[in-house]
């Protein structure tokens, strides 16, 4: 009788060997009946009372898992052998080695139905390609366009920068406060219950101006000069100005509200649709 330590060591080795054999059968498509499942289960059973630590118990579970995979393969093997597609690989192997190449091809073309696929161009695609070619600018011209132009340095006055919209003629905060005052007066004039429809306030005579007003409105809301009231079911949105700018409390998560402002929507609004 082996001492307990030796017995455990031998048991672990045996389980490892079973796992390796199962894995090689699965990985190399070998005949799953090469393994004697019953004999291996007996081995697992024999050593099971020896296992006390989690590592050994995991090894035991892994062995059972691998044996279960082999049993599954055996079941598939039996199923395949019972189908009409099953052919003994040795028989077929022998046959293939003995048949002439020409005969193999003659056999294959009887059961081969190659797919038909065309890749040739059509008159329409040629015409389209020609149109594209005509409109394509020659490479040397395109490269010219991309080359950086030399710009001479000079001076500009503040008025010139304002005219070019690089600088504003008033500070942004001043502009924002003016816009807030305009919102409050519009609400007093055209609004209801201290609020005004988003479209009524933002949409202007030109699309450019509309975009600018939407931009400013977003800052009014972000900086606490106003808030948005959204009624999703009615698909309505109102702007509610505050009397005094609200102070944002740090703990509260701010929410972004995307608002689409397309030229088509603006045109519809212009036409009164």
């Amino acid at each position, binding site marked *: 009788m082996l001492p307990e330590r030796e017995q455990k060591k031998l048991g672990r080795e045996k389980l490892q060997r079973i796992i390796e054999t199962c894995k090689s059968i699965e*990985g*190399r*498509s070998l005949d799953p009946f090469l393994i004697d499942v019953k004999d291996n289960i007996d081995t697992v059973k024999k050593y099971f009372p020896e296992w006390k630590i989690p590592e050994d118990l995991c090894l035991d579970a892994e062995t059972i898992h691998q044996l279960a995979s082999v049993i599954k393969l055996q079941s*598939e*093997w039996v199923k*395949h052998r019972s189908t*009409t*597609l*099953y*052919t*003994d*690989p040795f*028989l*077929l*192997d022998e*046959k*293939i*080695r*003995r*048949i*002439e*190449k*020409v*005969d*193999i*091809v*003659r*056999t*294959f*073309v*009887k*059961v*081969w*139905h*190659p*797919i*038909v*696929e*065309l*890749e040739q161009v059509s008159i329409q695609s040629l015409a389209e390609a020609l149109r594209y070619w005509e409109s394509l600018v020659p490479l040397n011209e395109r490269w010219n366009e991309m080359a950086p132009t030399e710009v001479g340095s000079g001076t500009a006055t503040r008025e010139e920068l304002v005219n070019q919209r690089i600088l504003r003629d008033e500070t942004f905060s001043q502009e924002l406060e003016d816009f807030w005052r305009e919102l409050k007066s519009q609400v007093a004039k055209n609004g209801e219950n201290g609020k005004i429809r988003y479209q009524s306030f933002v949409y202007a005579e030109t699309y450019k101006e509309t975009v600018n007003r939407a931009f400013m409105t977003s800052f009014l809301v972000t900086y606490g000069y106003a808030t948005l009231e959204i009624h999703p079911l009615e698909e309505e949105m109102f702007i509610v100005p505050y009397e005094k700018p609200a102070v944002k409390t740090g703990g509260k998560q701010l929410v972004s509200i995307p608002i689409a402002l397309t030229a088509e929507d603006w045109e519809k609004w212009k036409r009164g649709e």
Partner: protein
Amino acid sequence: MSKRKAYYASKLKRATHMLFYKRHKKPGVKGWELRKTIGSDYPKVLKIMDDFLKPLDLQVKTVFEEEKQVEKPTQEQLDKARFLIELRGELAPKEAKMIGWRIDDLAGLAIAISYIISKKGKSPRKEVDELLREKLPGWKVGINIDRYVRYGYLAQDENEQLYLDWRTRAEVDQKALVDLLLRAES
């Protein structure tokens, strides 16, 4: 032409353009694409097309996602299936040469497919390689197997196992191939 005939004639044209001309990397069109372009009655349009193709020795082939052929497919199975135009009858060996296959390459393909079928649809590449080396020059065997994989006849996994891929399922009558090979006189 009656209204009904004109309706199907126009759908038939669109289906022909979609099925004959290559649209994606893989040939053929998915069912959902046909439904989107032709309408939900596309199976009927394909049936009419199949009748038209019969005298030309061509047919509309349905390749389902599942490996086996489906007897009564559901709408979902049809939408996921791939539809192709393929030869209905048989090619003569000389014709195979005309469509770009050398006799050696075709023989190699036939051997690889039948061997994998006999091995339950999965075989180590090494075994197929050794089998092909019996009758093909060694330098060509690797190139040919790679070509069969590239064309979609075979698939290879990270363990160098070869499987039958979508093109074999679409083009080859596997059972008939094995039967004929076993019956062939050596």
